[in-house]
């Protein structure tokens, strides 16, 4: 059992090692290595979760021979292990759901490079979840950004490259702000490890020195991470990137990449600066307001789209707004709701992207509303999966989206002066969500089942092409969604227990 404490470190290193090895093998073997690696990480994270589950405290693991203020270290508790497990599940299902498209979307001879990017992204996500060191956080944020950029541009039809450069410029602005915040923090505390830095900040706050720099640091870091995760006024890159990438990349980008940054931000809030300092600095109010605006504006933009993928992408803008609104409430309940919504959104968005693939496959590759008419009859599993995802986004009972909306609403009741705004935004956003998602669901089910007989040959071909793994991924993601909806108590309990030992 004691050996299990090595597992987070193993999972990070295995992911990197597989990435390095994949660069020298063929595309097919790279895919196998990648799938095996993600499965391995899944198992290792599950073991870690079991190991830390009944400990009641976080485990600190040295990366090297030297303890806290001198050497790097990683730290994991219930929440970190659970997030790693969850992220590896989503990664596995996204790769499974879209690999048949990777072959067609990626230039011949460069498929293995795509899986290198997947491996490196997995390792950077794990490192961002586990790290207990600010500068390590920055380095792995950069790896994550570059891997995401590579995933966007691997589909080289011009659109991908323009999307990639827009993404890159926005992300680099975000990392620049984060980096200078980090340097300022080092300057006033003298530490880069999170726990000693927190102690130094406590003395700084108690003595009342460096008040202005601390405020600037908090805002620079928050704004940097908000830009990188695509909060509303900085969202302009989201629709293009998610809309044009290959399906696996879209699913991974929307459900994991931006979430990694948010988790790092939460970690900085809790573990480095301290929640009471954050609450008294009023930066949370700004995040709250932007989150509310994002919820409404993202949904409004989504209604105006005619392309299904772009609609899903704009809905991501709204969902990021939900998460920041939850963080902005500034209470523990709000944070639990935000983290639960991270899980919900990851499951639902990857479900939507993966099932949408199944729908285009049988619709002559068309992605606009009318092109998808009747598609659900042609690929039933994808149709059901898309409907489940859409209903979950809208907040249908029994599905995960309902639980997270409920959690947001109850969390808002604790903060009287933010309650009205939150509830109002929730209602408006839910109605708007319902408008655009249900319109799409109705479209794919409209018409009689037998109506499309004129293209029956094409359909049969398409269905046989639609791979087994895509269906498997869709079904698994539906089950994940149902699990989050039906057994939410377990997950919420896990999250709140994890948050207690997170700081």
């Amino acid at each position: 059992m004691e050996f299990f404490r090595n597992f987070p470190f193993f999972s990070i290193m295995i992911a990197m090692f597989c990435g390095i090895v994949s660069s020298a093998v063929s595309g097919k073997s790279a895919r196998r290595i990648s799938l095996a690696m993600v499965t391995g990480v899944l198992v290792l994270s599950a073991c870690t979760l079991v190991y830390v589950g009944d400990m009641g405290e976080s485990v600190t693991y040295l990366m090297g021979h030297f303890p806290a203020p001198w050497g790097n270290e990683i730290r994991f508790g219930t929440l970190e292990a659970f997030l790693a497990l969850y992220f590896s599940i989503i990664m596995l299902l996204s790769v499974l759901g879209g690999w048949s498209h990777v072959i067609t979307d990626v230039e011949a001879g460069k498929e293995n490079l795509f899986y290198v990017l997947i491996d490196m992204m997995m390792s950077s996500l794990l490192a961002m979840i586990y790290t207990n060191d600010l500068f390590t956080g920055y380095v792995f944020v950069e790896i994550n950004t570059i891997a995401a950029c590579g995933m966007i541009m691997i589909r080289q039809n011009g659109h991908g490259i323009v999307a990639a450069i827009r993404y890159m410029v926005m992300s680099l602005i975000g990392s620049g702000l984060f980096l200078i915040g980090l340097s300022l923090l080092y300057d006033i505390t003298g530490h880069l490890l999170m726990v000693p830095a927190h102690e130094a900040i406590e003395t700084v706050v108690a003595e009342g020195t460096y008040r202005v720099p601390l405020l600037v640091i908090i805002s620079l870091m928050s704004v940097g991470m908000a830009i990188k995760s695509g909060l509303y006024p900085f969202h302009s890159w989201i629709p293009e990137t998610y809309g044009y990438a290959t399906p696996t990349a879209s699913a991974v980008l929307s459900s994991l990449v931006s979430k990694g940054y948010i988790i790092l931000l939460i970690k900085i809030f809790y573990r480095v600066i301290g929640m009471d300092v954050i609450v008294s600095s009023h930066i949370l109010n700004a995040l709250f307001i932007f989150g509310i605006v994002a919820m409404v504006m993202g949904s409004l933009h989504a209604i105006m789209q005619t392309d299904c993928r772009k609609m899903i992408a704009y809905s991501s803008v709204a969902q990021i707004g939900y998460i920041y609104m939850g963080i902005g409430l500034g209470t523990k309940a709000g944070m639990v709701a935000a983290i639960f919504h991270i899980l919900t959104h990851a499951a639902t968005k990857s479900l939507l992207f993966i099932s949408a693939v199944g729908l285009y496959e049988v619709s002559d590759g068309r992605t606009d509303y009318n092109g998808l008419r009747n598609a659900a009859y042609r690929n039933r599993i994808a149709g059901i999966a898309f409907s489940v995802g859409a209903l979950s986004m809208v907040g249908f009972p029994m599905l995960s989206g309902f639980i997270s909306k409920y959690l947001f609403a109850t969390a808002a009741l604790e903060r009287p002066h933010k309650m009205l705004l939150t509830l109002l935004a929730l209602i408006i956003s839910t109605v708007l969500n319902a408008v655009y998602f249900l319109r799409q669901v109705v479209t794919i089910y409209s018409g009689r089942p037998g109506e499309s007989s004129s293209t029956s040959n094409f359909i049969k071909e398409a269905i046989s092409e639609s791979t087994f793994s895509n269906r498997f991924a869709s079904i698994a993601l539906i089950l994940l969604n149902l699990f989050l909806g039906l057994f939410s108590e377990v997950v919420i309990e896990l999250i709140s227990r994890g948050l207690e030992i997170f700081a």
Partner: protein
Amino acid sequence: MIDFLQTLIEYHIEEAASMILFGIGFSLLLLNRNLIKKIMGLNIMDTAVYLFLTAKGYVYGRMVPIMNSGITDPNAYTNPIPDGLVLTGIVVSVSVSAILLSLTIRLYDRYHTLDLDKIITEWRKEEDN
């Protein structure tokens, strides 16, 4: 105001310079429409942060952090931590610049301009078609 400037010049001149450079680089990256200028802005922004970090590691009258004739007194050397961080940071900047430059080459291949606004406009036209 005069007080402020005096403090800046007397005690914080490196930091002030690096903040100005950071601002210049940030504006170049955000506002300039020319892609190559954007990349230069990125590099200027990053080096400004590195200048800031190095300045924070300096202490008057101390030696380079390389052991000299067996002295291991921490008060004899400047702080080695910022140097290490900056070394890591420089590698990150180079990698990112290389990626951005290769993206620029590909974009110029296709759109024959370096103006990001024009590229995006062209792109929207293609997309609406």
